[in-house]
């Protein structure tokens, strides 16, 4: 019964999406206040009904209603409650419900929080949001209904892939989708602006919080996924340039470029049509990611062809959405004239360089991800494009970008003084050189590349501190006044400083963990000792440690440094009888400076176990840096100027626009 109600709720949401996609658009062109206001009502209603459908699906999972095919295929009665719930979005149909739920959430948020938007603009934004919802609800109802019943109902379910039974992974998809799908709002804002033929600083201010919110969520979502891969997959890697990872990384890169170019629109009213194009591309890449992951095309073009229904549908969605928005863009964008002029050396130019490099990097990832598919589709040779390609092309694009970051963020608008900025950054430059020299001298695994990586990291972090010191006039205007300035520094300034420092920490983490990982692979029996990166590791043998829905053997390791015990680590080899699959839980001891990462492998003989020991320097900095970057975005998001100043200004602009029209 509840499943049928869930299905009904989806149908009603579809009907409301139809209303949302049409009436407000008509209302906006006729200036009809009632028709325009239907947009908000429909958006909120759509969110309510999709929430009900989502709740119905979760209910089916929680009570283990195996008469629902989706629950039967992806759950089991003995699974812990958390994983019954997270299992709901650990599959194709369920993850689509989550996708449209978040889309509707953003639509409803625009309806509720967008009170300061001019009515026609808001109506058009919501209508575009409605059109996207319409496409995906139709996709779900026609090809991927999560509420299909089985008769007779099976006694128990098939279970969930055990490597997905993990708290990090329960959170990962919702976070990732908040980012992915969140860019739909910026996309809808861009579409509405194109329809109205007007993009200005106020537009950039309206779009800014939504873009930031999506970017922050996507940043955290990707970090969570990579952290999970690190601790769950059992060999200490954290990024694989896998097509599915790339699918989320491309919108992140494009979204980062968008954040930066939107600042230029906001401050200087130029780069308008480029920013609109980026807004379209960012969401298009999110859609493409959904297509790549959901259609099975990644495994092979031929797998796609054998079960074409879903793939063709979502490909059609993709073509309509991207093609339609680009067509609208090419029709309307030429009428948008840029305003502010700027010199080759200026903040604007620096942000343009940022965009050039980030856009090229996005295109490179796209090219590498799709190239094998293209060749395959054209009946060319089957090739693989793996990490070596991405490292060889992506890294050279990122290095100049990172070098430019501290300089660009200190250049003045319109016309900057490069020499002055470089002189102001001399402390950061000194820090970078010092770090490179010290690392080369004192860390034995530091080669030239690693030394350069650390220098870049120091340059970014010290550059941010340098920027902060300059902004508050440290050592120039007296300490008390500097403190006052520090307290008065706006959120967006903190955002830049914090996010760029986080980037530096991330670079340090990536450099250290790629260049400095030590590894020992050997067989050990209880009582054996070995050493890795200066630590002595004693294997204490294996005990049984069964869990709620799995059997496990737990190996214990004691790591000591200079005779002193620093950590006891447990690594488990688990077997899930329902799913018939093993998983590995690494034993990890994390400090600020290094991770000890020990993995118990198979039994190689009586009492003799294969073990893998890793020493990963600075690896926690990768996620620490990413989280700090996200927090930087958050600082910028809570900048009070965007909350208090906007409504007044927006209205006055709206009136002006109305008068012009």
């Amino acid at each position, binding site marked *: 019964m509840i499943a049928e109600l869930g299905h009904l709720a989806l149908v009603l949401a579809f009907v409301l999406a139809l209303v949302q996609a049409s009436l407000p658009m008509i209302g906006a062109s006729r200036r009809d206040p009632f028709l325009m206001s239907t947009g908000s009502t429909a958006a909120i209603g759509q969110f309510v009904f999709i929430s009900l459908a989502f709740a119905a699906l979760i209910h089916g999972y929680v009570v283990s209603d195996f008469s629902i095919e989706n629950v039967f295929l992806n759950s089991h009665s003995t699974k812990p409650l958390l994983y019954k719930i997270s299992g709901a979005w650990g599959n194709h149909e369920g993850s689509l419900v989550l996708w449209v739920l978040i889309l509707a959430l953003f639509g409803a948020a625009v309806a509720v929080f967008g009170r300061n938007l001019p009515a026609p603009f808001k109506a058009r934004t919501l209508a575009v949001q409605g059109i996207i919802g319409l496409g995906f609800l139709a996709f779900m109802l026609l090809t991927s209904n999560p509420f299909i019943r089985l008769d007779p109902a099976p006694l128990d379910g098939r279970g969930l892939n055990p*490597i*997905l039974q993990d708290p990090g992974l329960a959170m990962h998809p919702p976070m990732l989708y908040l980012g992915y799908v969140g860019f739909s709002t910026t996309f809808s804002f861009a579409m509405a602006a194109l329809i109205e033929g007007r993009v200005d600083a106020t537009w950039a201010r309206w779009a800014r919080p939504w873009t930031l919110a999506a970017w922050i969520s996507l940043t955290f979502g990707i970090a969570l996924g990579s952290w999970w891969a690190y601790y769950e997959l059992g*060999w200490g890697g954290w990024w694989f340039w896998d097509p599915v990872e790339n699918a989320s990384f491309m919108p992140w890169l494009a979204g980062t470029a968008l954040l930066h170019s939107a600042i230029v629109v906001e401050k200087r009213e130029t780069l308008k049509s480029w920013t609109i194009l980026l807004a379209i591309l960012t969401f298009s890449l999110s859609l493409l990611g959904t297509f790549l992951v959901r259609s099975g095309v990644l495994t092979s073009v031929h*797998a796609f062809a054998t079960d074409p229904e879903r793939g063709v549908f979502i490909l059609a969605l993709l073509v309509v959405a991207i093609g339609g928005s680009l067509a609208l863009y090419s029709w309307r964008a030429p009428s948008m004239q840029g305003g502010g002029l700027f010199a080759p050396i200026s903040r604007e130019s620096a942000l343009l360089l940022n965009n050039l490099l980030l856009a090229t990097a996005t295109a490179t990832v796209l090219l590498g991800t799709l*190239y094998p598919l293209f060749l395959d589709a054209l009946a060319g040779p089957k*090739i693989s494009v793996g990490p070596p*390609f991405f490292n060889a092309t992506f890294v050279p694009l990122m290095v100049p970008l990172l070098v430019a970051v501290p300089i660009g963020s200190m250049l003045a608008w319109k016309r900057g003084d490069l020499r002055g900025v470089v002189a102001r950054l001399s402390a950061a430059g000194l820090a970078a050189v010092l770090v490179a020299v010290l690392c080369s001298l004192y860390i034995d695994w530091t080669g030239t590349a690693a030394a350069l990586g650390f220098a870049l990291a120091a340059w970014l972090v010290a550059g941010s501190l340098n920027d902060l010191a300059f902004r508050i006039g440290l050592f120039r205007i007296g300490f008390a006044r500097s403190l006052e300035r520090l307290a*008065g520094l706006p959120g967006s300034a903190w955002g830049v400083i914090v996010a760029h420092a986080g980037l530096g920490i991330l670079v340090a983490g990536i450099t250290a963990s790629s260049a400095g990982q030590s590894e020992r*692979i050997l067989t050990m029996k209880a009582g054996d000792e070995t050493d890795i990166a200066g630590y002595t590791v004693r294997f204490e043998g294996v005990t049984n440690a069964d869990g709620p829905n799995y059997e496990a053997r737990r190996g214990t390791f004691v790591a000591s440094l200079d005779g002193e015990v620093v950590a006891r680590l447990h690594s488990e080899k688990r077997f899930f009888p329902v799913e018939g699959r093993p998983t590995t839980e690494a034993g990890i001891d994390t400090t600020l400076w290094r991770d000890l990462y020990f993995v118990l492998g*198979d039994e190689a003989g009586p009492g003799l176990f294969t073990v893998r020991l890793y020493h990963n320097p600075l690896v926690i900095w990768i996620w620490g840096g990413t989280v700090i970057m996200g927090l930087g975005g958050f600082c910028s998001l809570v900048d009070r100027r965007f909350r208090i100043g906007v409504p007044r200004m927006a209205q006055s602009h709206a009136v002006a626009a109305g008068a012009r029209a």
Partner: protein
Amino acid sequence: MRAIVALIIMLLAAVPSLAGVTPDEILDDPALEERARSLGRELRCLVCQNQSIDDSDADLARDLRILVRERLESGDSDQQVRDYLVARYGEFVLLKPPVQASTWLLWAGPFALLLAGAVGVGTFMRRHPVGMTEPSPLSNDERARLQQLDIDKA
């Protein structure tokens, strides 16, 4: 993100978990083993979803790891090992595709795009020229206002 990979793997009822190299495969000569590892990272486990042979538990990956080590021990250069594997399994086995007719677009693409973008930016800047004259010095009024502003800000 690996989550969804895992998911696809699950949905397609395909293959194994990660791990890779086991102790019995490791060569006694550390230099040779190091070469085997760096080769292993750029060779694809053919039956897996985008994993290198060093990361995979699949039987085929193990066979390939052993094969690579046998070739290296018999004196092959890294390139000879790659050629041998390409002859047996096709270019699909290489995670780093070789530069050739079918891949020049892939390898040249990023740099061509960067160049095209740079030209685009250059055109944009030329169409929006900025007079390079020095701004006129501040008048006394402006100077006074600036001072006032600085006092207000502090």
